[in-house]
């Protein structure tokens, strides 16, 4: 367009602003990675120039030292997050489908109750839940964590899957019904294949949120089911703080969500906004 010529100067300025923003945005990540690669001697003495070493990662993972607490936390995070996602999926898919396809009394109530879980301050449930867990023996167990994490994963799964189901015209299932298939077959043969990528994306996103959660494991676990997020903070608490070890732990805690996020870019907006915004 001939008009663009006049805006070219402004375009460069805009690009410059963007570059500055992204430098600021990525700098903390660069910093933490750099710190995690520094030796004990260099961690307080240098900023950018140093000899990178993987010693901190070895130390955190307990390589050579026999046993690693960190790996246990990692495993606990994995079990809790995967468990929570699976439970949400099994319970959430039928509910989301029902909410998308049928008008029934209480469907709105159910949806808004779930949404209110998302917005409620966690402690409002955690305080009594903690007391309850102590009584039931669920405190600091995987089962207890998976149950509590439903607060995070369930609203996400139901709301987003509902928006996926709503996007599919009911005509497809209806056509399958008239073509001689039962309701269950119609669902399995027509709907499910179409929402499968969406379901996968929702699972990953729910996993990320479960993994990243801090306050639930912080208050409902102590050692057995303690997760990466909680332990990362605990690293800071000791008397002899080794910042480079803390950094290495943090990098490893961040890595899984960051890698998974690459797979769900397309569905990210819908997930983050609970289906309110679609891309």
């Amino acid at each position, binding site marked *: 367009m001939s008009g663009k010529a006049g805006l070219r100067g402004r375009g460069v300025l805009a690009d410059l602003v963007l570059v500055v923003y992204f430098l600021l945005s990525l700098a903390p990540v660069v910093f933490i990675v750099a710190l995690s690669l520094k030796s004990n001697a260099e961690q307080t003495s240098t900023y950018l120039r140093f000899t990178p070493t993987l010693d901190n990662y070895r130390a955190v993972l307990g390589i050579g030292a026999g046993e690693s607490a960190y790996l246990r936390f990692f495993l606990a995070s994995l079990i809790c997050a995967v468990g929570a996602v699976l439970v949400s999926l099994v319970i959430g898919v039928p509910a989301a489908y029902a909410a998308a396809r049928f008008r029934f009394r209480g469907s709105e109530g159910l949806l808004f109750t779930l949404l209110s879980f998302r917005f409620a301050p966690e402690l409002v449930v955690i305080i009594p839940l903690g007391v309850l867990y102590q009584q039931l023996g669920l405190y600091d167990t995987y089962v207890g964590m998976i149950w509590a994490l439903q607060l995070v994963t369930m609203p996400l799964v139901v709301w987003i899957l509902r928006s996926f189901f709503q996007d599919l015209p009911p005509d497809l299932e*209806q*056509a399958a019904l*008239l073509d*001689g298939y039962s309701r269950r077959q119609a669902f399995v043969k027509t709907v499910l294949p*179409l929402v499968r990528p969406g379901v996968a994306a929702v699972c990953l996103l729910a996993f990320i949120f479960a993994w990243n959660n801090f306050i639930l494991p912080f208050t409902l676990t102590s050692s057995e089911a303690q997760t990466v997020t909680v332990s990362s903070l605990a690293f800071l608490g000791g008397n002899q703080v080794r910042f480079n070890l803390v950094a290495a732990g943090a990098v490893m805690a961040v890595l899984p969500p960051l890698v998974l996020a690459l797979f769900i870019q397309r569905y990210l907006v819908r997930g983050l906004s609970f289906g309110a915004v679609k891309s």
Partner: protein
Amino acid sequence: MAALELAGIRKTYGRTVALDEATFDVRDGEFFCLLGPSGAGKTTTLKVAAGLAEPSVGVVRLDGVDVTDVEPTRRDLAMCFESYALYPQHNVFDNLAFPLRSPRRRMPAERTRQRILDITTLLGIDHLLDRPVTQLSNGQRQRVALGRVLVRPASAYLLDEPLSHLDARLRASMRAELKAISGEDGTTTLYVTHDYVEALSLADRIGVLDAGRIRQIGTPREVWSEPADTVVARSFGKPAINLVDGAIAAAGGVLTFVSTDGALRLPVPGLRTSPGVRAQLGIRPRDLGLLRGAGDLPSSLVCFDAAIYVLEHLGRQTEVTVRVGAALLSLVVPREVADGHVLDDKVVVTFDPAAAHVFLPDDGGRRVVR
């Protein structure tokens, strides 16, 4: 094959009434068209017939048996959706095979293949069998959707605007094709369309649907020449029927229609109504003509003065819009009759009183019978 009957169907969505007391029957082997504008309730009617929507009130019968509570799977109907409802994960062949492979039918593979080849050849899509449906044009998708209906035997076909997305040439030839198929195969068909030409061409009987209510049911000739009301009258013909507001007066013993501003006065003999009522005069554009020169006027015609408002070419014919007082009337004349006229020319319009309809706006637009 079966007779399909909808009795007293009322369907509401929340506060909106989609269908109001709809009652009609499609006889065994009959081709029945429901004609109406978008939002009239046509698709809802089909879904109720198919069992995909539950009527709030009313009964659906197949061959006299109440099937209102029967699951769609078991009604043995085939439906073509306006949205095509093709399975995007399958190619054309598998879409067409889908109903034949269903647990209800389980047609052997060889027969399935043969049947699909027959139908796709008929519809001119046999070269697309391996194509994913997502890569088809709208016209091709529509033919696949139609094929998925025709491929299997059913008690009745329910077709929702099956030709609407085709281009004009293809639509005309598919319409003729469909007419030939239905003539041979004689499956009971309920066909929904907004295109009056399709209805006139295909239907044994037409039901005119508007705002959830059935206005008239009749053969094409009946709904054309004896429309029950203005809605039905306006549903057929292009350009649409002219409707002029006015009243009925008695002039010299003859009932006369007088337009609101008095500019148009036309005798309408033989009406069963009384002078003084508000009325709408309906004249189809092809029942009007332009008087050329001082030629003699057939005695059956009357004429009135008008001014040209707009001239529009339609191939060999010209649509002339003339102004009479505040009223605008369209008429269609051969091109050479209109040639030479310019805007605001004074012309004389001829008119056959026997072809006029009179409607009563105070009575829901009902037509006055002669």
